[in-house]
């Protein structure tokens, strides 16, 4: 019999909640969808293994005494993955601080808050490790199948990476709490998390642009400069890479270091976690005074009133702005490549335009969800004396307007060099944005704006349709910019996706 409120009992409780969250995430809340979700997971696993075979099969027989180039490549890949894990862990830690779901119960119960938070941190670490293992498993399995069991040691490295990422995320988030306070930490921590997740990828791409004029991040990792400045191959710096290659001594050192880091972080921060959670609880009650829009009410059409409301709500929510615009961060390397190309006179538009169009589609999808499904007063808008299609039209206009405003500078810059490419890019952006908005309209639900991050789990079909539609429009734009008549192919696919979405959409029924 497990003693109540003990660490084991609490861990069991967290495990149960975590498992149910995961099942809910996979099945989107529908128990009857479990079988479908299982089949989908098996298909994804097969696809990922095929993809892994295609990308890493040639490295399966790399020797333990690999040269600096191999060590730099593996370490760079590990660091890239670790930065994403750190980003994810920071998100989880921040969410745990601000989530009020059961904190009132926990903090008012006689159970030791320190124990509760220690277990909760353990849950965050477990989730981080589980995600890392799931993502890495196809690659490790393929390497082990082709190159021998020694590659299985990579699982140990992945687990260690998850543990260290959680420790670093705890330290960083609590440092933010202590320096900038509970009120600002929520926003800043999430921006920092996103920047950390993107910075390493973007940094490598920028380095690649300047050194080789392309977007491949591995170009920078394999550059002469990098190889010359890398530490000696016997250095402890390469232990994680050596552990991946099957060096069991290095593996033991890496795992021991990671477990010690996580244990230390939990021991040190579990008490502070409760203090900061209490501080975070007080944030929402703070009043924010708003400068008056003006002394007099203004005369506007109903559509303009709706558009203005959408823009005002978005502008006043820095968290949503950061979540939406973070996708724009990934446009930085293509924009830089555009600038470099512009200066050197090379023609790289075929590479750039699909990236821009794809980003526009994804951004529009997010904004459309916010304006259509994330309407906080649906009854008010629905009972207003405006025709329903006029309401939707105003919301679509609000989304397209925002996307146009964000992408206009890029298109204008492109137009200086090539008017045809700029026209294609502009049309591609509008098409991808309109398609993503239509998909969100077909799969509209009633949700809180604060659930924005969970929007992908509410409808798998909408999520995949949105992604494939953006890809199809990106391909159409790239081929059109290259002057190929084959652009008609992906355009037909894009329209086909929209038609399929319309046919299966719940709103039609």
């Amino acid at each position: 019999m497990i003693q109540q409120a003990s660490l084991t009992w609490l861990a069991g409780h967290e495990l149960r909640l975590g498992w149910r969250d995961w099942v809910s995430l996979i099945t989107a809340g529908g128990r009857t969808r479990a079988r479908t979700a299982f089949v989908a997971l098996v298909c994804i696993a097969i696809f990922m293994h095929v993809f892994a075979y295609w990308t890493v099969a040639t490295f399966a027989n790399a020797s333990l005494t690999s040269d600096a180039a191999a060590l730099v490549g593996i370490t760079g890949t590990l660091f890239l993955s670790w930065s994403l894990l750190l980003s994810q862990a920071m998100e989880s830690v921040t969410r745990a601080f601000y989530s009020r779901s059961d904190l009132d119960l926990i903090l008012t119960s006689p159970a030791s808050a320190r124990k509760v938070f220690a277990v909760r941190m353990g849950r965050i670490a477990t989730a981080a490790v589980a995600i890392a293992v799931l993502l890495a498993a196809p690659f490790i399995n393929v390497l082990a199948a082709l190159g021998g069991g020694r590659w299985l040691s990579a699982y140990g490295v992945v687990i260690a990476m998850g543990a260290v990422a959680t420790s670093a995320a705890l330290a960083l988030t609590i440092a933010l709490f202590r320096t900038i306070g509970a009120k600002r930490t929520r926003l800043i921590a999430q921006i920092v998390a996103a920047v950390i997740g993107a910075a390493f990828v973007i940094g490598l791409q920028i380095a690649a642009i300047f050194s080789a004029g392309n977007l491949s991040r591995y170009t920078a990792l394999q550059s002469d400069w990098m190889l010359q400045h890398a530490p000696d191959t016997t250095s402890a710096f390469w232990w994680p890479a050596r552990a991946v290659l099957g060096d069991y001594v290095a593996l033991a050192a890496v795992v021991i270091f990671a477990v010690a880091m996580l244990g230390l972080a939990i021991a040190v921060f579990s008490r502070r976690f409760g203090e900061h959670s209490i501080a975070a609880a007080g944030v929402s009650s703070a009043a924010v005074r708003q400068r008056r829009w003006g002394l007099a009410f203004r005369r506007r059409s109903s559509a303009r009133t709706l558009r203005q409301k959408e823009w005002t709500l978005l502008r006043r929510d820095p968290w949503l702005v950061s979540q939406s615009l973070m996708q724009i961060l990934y446009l930085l390397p293509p924009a830089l490549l555009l600038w470099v190309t512009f200066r050197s006179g090379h023609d790289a538009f075929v590479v750039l335009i699909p990236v821009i169009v794809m980003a526009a589609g994804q951004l529009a999808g997010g904004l459309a969800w916010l304006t259509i499904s994330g309407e906080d007063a649906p009854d008010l808008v629905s009972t207003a004396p405006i025709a329903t299609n006029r309401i939707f039209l105003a919301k679509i206009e609000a989304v397209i307007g925002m996307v146009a405003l964000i992408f206009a500078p890029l298109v204008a810059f492109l137009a200086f060099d090539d008017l045809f490419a700029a026209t294609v890019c502009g049309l591609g952006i509008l098409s991808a944005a309109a398609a993503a908005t239509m998909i969100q309209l077909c799969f509209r639900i009633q949700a809180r704006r604060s659930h924005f991050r969970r929007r992908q789990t509410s409808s798998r079909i909408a999520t995949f349709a949105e992604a494939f539609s953006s890809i199809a429009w990106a391909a159409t734009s790239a081929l059109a910019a290259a002057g190929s008549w084959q652009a008609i192919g992906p355009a037909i696919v894009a329209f086909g996706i929209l038609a399929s979405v319309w046919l299966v959409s719940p709103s039609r029924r």
Partner: protein
Amino acid sequence: MTGSNRSTALALRGVSKSFDRLAVDALDLTIYGGEFYALVGPNGAGKTTTLRMVVGLLKPDAGSIHIGGIDALSDPVAAKQITAWLSDEPMIYDKLTPYEYLEFVAGLWRIEPAVAQARARELIGWLGLKPHAHERCEGFSRGMRQKVALAGALVHDPKLIILDEPLTGLDAGTARQVKDVLRARVREGGTVIMTTHILEVAERMADRIGVIARGRLIAEGTLDDLRRQTGKTATSLEDTFLTLVAEQAAA
């Protein structure tokens, strides 16, 4: 109080709605202008479904709905122009201030800006929201949010106000303010329809009370009319209501 010589504010004829089961069953209901009408019934009786059909949030499977003589099913925009809806869960925008929220509502109903602004100021003062008029609603208590939503429902000067459990979760002071505002609307000639589980409120405020159970109107009238129907005089609305519902369940 009879409505024979008064205009009809709301008329439902044979209105039905089914989900997994029958929620509203061929309901006939007439409410007159300048009347305060309370719709009471047990949980799941079909009160909210009925009212959501009236304001256009649900489409009835059968029947007709007329608001102020306008066919709400064939001309919903015209019907909505003279109607306000307030649900039990105040739905407002956290990032707008009460003042901005009222400007938004006035914009949706296309109210003349000067008129809407004067009304907004009056309502903000009346509901005690003046100190918070330019604060974002995100930090507001439930009572304050309900007051903002009520101000939004009144700013376009609707002829018919429909409220679903408007007093749920409000403290005594806020509940009193809401009730005062609604009484004032009725005095000015407006019509108020309200669902409530607080039978005391229905007893004190309503001109007529409708009892709904299993999607049908099982009794209607003043408190005395309802008492007569149960054959028991000098009983409270609570006793009368429980008797009526028990009779319906047994039928």
